C-alpha cells in the first residue's frame, strides 16, 4: 500500500484544474488570442472612443463634404462634412452594447428555460421546447423584422428582437446538457443527501453547462451584431444621426460611385468586430470542449 502511494505522488503533475487547462489550451491558439486582444481594444474604444475621437460626431463642416481619407480625416468625411473616423469610433459602443444586451438577455432566459425543460421534463419540457420550435420556424432576421414591425423601429426594439431569437439556441443547448448531467452520479448523490431542486440546478448542473454557454455566447455576440447592423441598414434599427455602423453603411450607398470609402470603412468595422467574436468563440470551444482534446 505504501508503495502504491509513492507511485501516485510520483505521477502527480503540477496541479491542473479544468480552468488552468482551458487557459493553457486557449493560449496555444494564436487567432483566438489576437481576437481577444482586439475585443479588449474595442471595449476600451467603447468607453473612451468619444474622448479619443478627433472630431465631434455631429460636427458639420460644409466646406469639407465627402472628402477622401487624408491625414485630417483618416476615413474621410460624409455628405455633411462629418468626420467618418470619429463616427465609426463612436459607433463601437453602440454595436458592443447591442451585442451585449441582446445576447445576455437571450442567454439568461435561454439558460433558465433550458434548465427547467431538461430537469423537470414532461409537460414543462414539451411546452418550452414547442415554443422554441416555433421561434426556430421563423428564420432569424424575419422574426426580428416581425418584432420590430410590431414594436416600431429603434435600437431598444432591435435588442429585444435579437434577444428573442437567440433565446431558443441557448435553451436547446442547456437542455441537452442538463439531460446528460441529470443522470450523472454526482447529481444523484446530491439528490440523495437532500439538496433542493434549485440547489441541484444552479450549483451542480449549471456549472456543467457553463462551457457550452460561454462558447455560444461568444458566437451569438458576433451574429447579433451582424443582425442588428442589418436591421439598421434596412432602416429598422438605429435612426439618423446615430453613428451606428449599419446605418453609416446604408447612408454610403447614395455615394457609391463618388465616395466608396463611406461604405468601405463601416463595413470593415462590422466585419472585424464580428470576426473577432467568432474567432474567440472558436478558440473557446477548442479550449473548453473535452471531446476535442487528444
Amino acid at each position, binding site marked *: 500500500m505504501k508503495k502504491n502511494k509513492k507511485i501516485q505522488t510520483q505521477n502527480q503533475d503540477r496541479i491542473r484544474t479544468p480552468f488552468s487547462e482551458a487557459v493553457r489550451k486557449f493560449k496555444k491558439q494564436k487567432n483566438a488570442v489576437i481576437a481577444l486582444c482586439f475585443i479588449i481594444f474595442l471595449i476600451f474604444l467603447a468607453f473612451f472612443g468619444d474622448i479619443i475621437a478627433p472630431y465631434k460626431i455631429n460636427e458639420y463642416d460644409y466646406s469639407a463634404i465627402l472628402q477622401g481619407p487624408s491625414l485630417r480625416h483618416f476615413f474621410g468625411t460624409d455628405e455633411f462634412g462629418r468626420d467618418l473616423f470619429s463616427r465609426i469610433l463612436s459607433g463601437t459602443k453602440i454595436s458592443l452594447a447591442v451585442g451585449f444586451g441582446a445576447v445576455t438577455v437571450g442567454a439568461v432566459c435561454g439558460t433558465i428555460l433550458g434548465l427547467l425543460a431538461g430537469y423537470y421534463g414532461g409537460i414543462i419540457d414539451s411546452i418550452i421546447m414547442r415554443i422554441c420550435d*416555433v421561434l426556430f420556424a421563423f428564420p*432569424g*432576421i424575419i422574426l426580428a423584422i416581425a418584432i420590430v*414591425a410590431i414594436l416600431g423601429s429603434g435600437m431598444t426594439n432591435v435588442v429585444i428582437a435579437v434577444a428573442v431569437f437567440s433565446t431558443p439556441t441557448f435553451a436547446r443547448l442547456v437542455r441537452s446538457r442538463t439531460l446528460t448531467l441529470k443522470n450523472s452520479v454526482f447529481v444523484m448523490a446530491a439528490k440523495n443527501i437532500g439538496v433542493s431542486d434549485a440547489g441541484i440546478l444552479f450549483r451542480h448542473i449549471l456549472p456543467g453547462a457553463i462551457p457550452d454557454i460561454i462558447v455560444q455566447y461568444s458566437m451569438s455576440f458576433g451574429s447579433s451584431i451582424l443582425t442588428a447592423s*442589418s436591421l439598421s441598414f434596412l432602416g429598422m434599427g438605429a435612426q439618423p444621426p446615430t453613428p451606428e455602423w449599419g446605418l453609416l453603411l446604408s447612408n454610403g450607398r447614395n455615394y457609391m460611385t463618388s465616395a466608396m470609402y463611406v*461604405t468601405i470603412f463601416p463595413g470593415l468595422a462590422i466585419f472585424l468586430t*464580428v*470576426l473577432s467574436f467568432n474567432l474567440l468563440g*472558436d478558440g473557446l470551444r477548442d479550449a473548453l470542449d473535452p471531446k476535442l482534446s487528444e
Partner: protein
Amino acid sequence: MLKYLLKRIVGTIPTLIIVVTFVFLFVRIIPGDPARLVAGEQATQQDVEAVRERLGLNKPVTTQYITYVSGLLHGDLGTSLRTKRPVLEEISGRFGNTVRLAAVTLLWSAIAGVLFGVWSGTHRGKWQDYTGMTVAVSGISLPSFWIGFLLIMLLAVKMKILPTTSSSDWKGLIMPSITLGLGIAAIIARFTRSSIVEILKEDYIRTARAKGIREKVVVWKHVFRNSMISVVTVVGLQFGFLLGGSVVTETVFAYPGLGSLLIESVNYRDYPAIQSLILIFSLQFIVINLLVDVLYAVLNPEIKLQ
C-alpha cells in the same frame, strides 16, 4: 420509412397551428388601435370604423380567428393597404424570383461549402485546414450588405461587366447569389469539416484503411457518405438563414422578390402584407425541413428500413 415520415409530418402540425396563431395575433398585439393603424393617421373616425367593420375587428377574437383561418384555407390572405390588390397576387408575382435566387444560391453554396469542408477536414492541422477555416470564419463574419456593395462597386461600377440593379435573368442573379451564398457556404464548410474530423476518428474508417482501401476512396465513399447524414440537417437549417438573408440581399440589389416586398411593406406599415409574408417565410422553412427529413431518412439505412 413511411412511418417515420408520417410521424414527422404529424409533428409539424402543432408548429403550423402555433405559427398561424402567432401571425393572426401579430396585428392584434401592435400597441394602439389596429383599425386606426390600418386606416392611416389622417383617416377620419368614420374611415377607422369602416376599416374596423371591413376587417371584422369589432367581432369577438375567436370569430376573427376562425374567419382568418378559413380565409387562409381558401387562399385569401387579405388586401394590401399599399396597392389595394389581394396580398396573394402580390406575393405570387414575386414568389418565383425568390425561389430562383434561393435555389441557385443553395446549390452553389452547398457544393462549395462541402468541398471546402472536406478539403479542410481531411487535412486537419495542416495549412489547407488553416486556410479553409480562416476563409470560412471570415465568411460567416462578413455583413452581406457590405459584400453586396463591394460587388456592385467592383463588378458593375468599375469593371462594368454586370448590371447594377438586378433582374431575374441569370446575369442579374450572379451578384445577389454570391452575396447571399457566401455566409451559407462558410457555415456549411465549417460544419462539414467538423463532421469529417469526427468521422475520421470512427472505428469503421480504421477498418476501411485496414482493408487497404485507397485513401481517396476512404474519404469519398466511407467518410463523405456518413458525414452527409448530419451535414444535410445543417443545410436544411441554413435555409432559414438563406430566407432571412434574402431580405437584406434583395434590398441591396433591388431584386424583385419576397424579401424586398417585406421591407417595402414594413416601411409602408402594410400589415396584411407583412402578416402574410411572415407566414409564407415560415411555411417555406417548415416545408424545407420536412424535405430534409426525407433526405436524412434516405441517407440513413437504419431509418430507411424501419
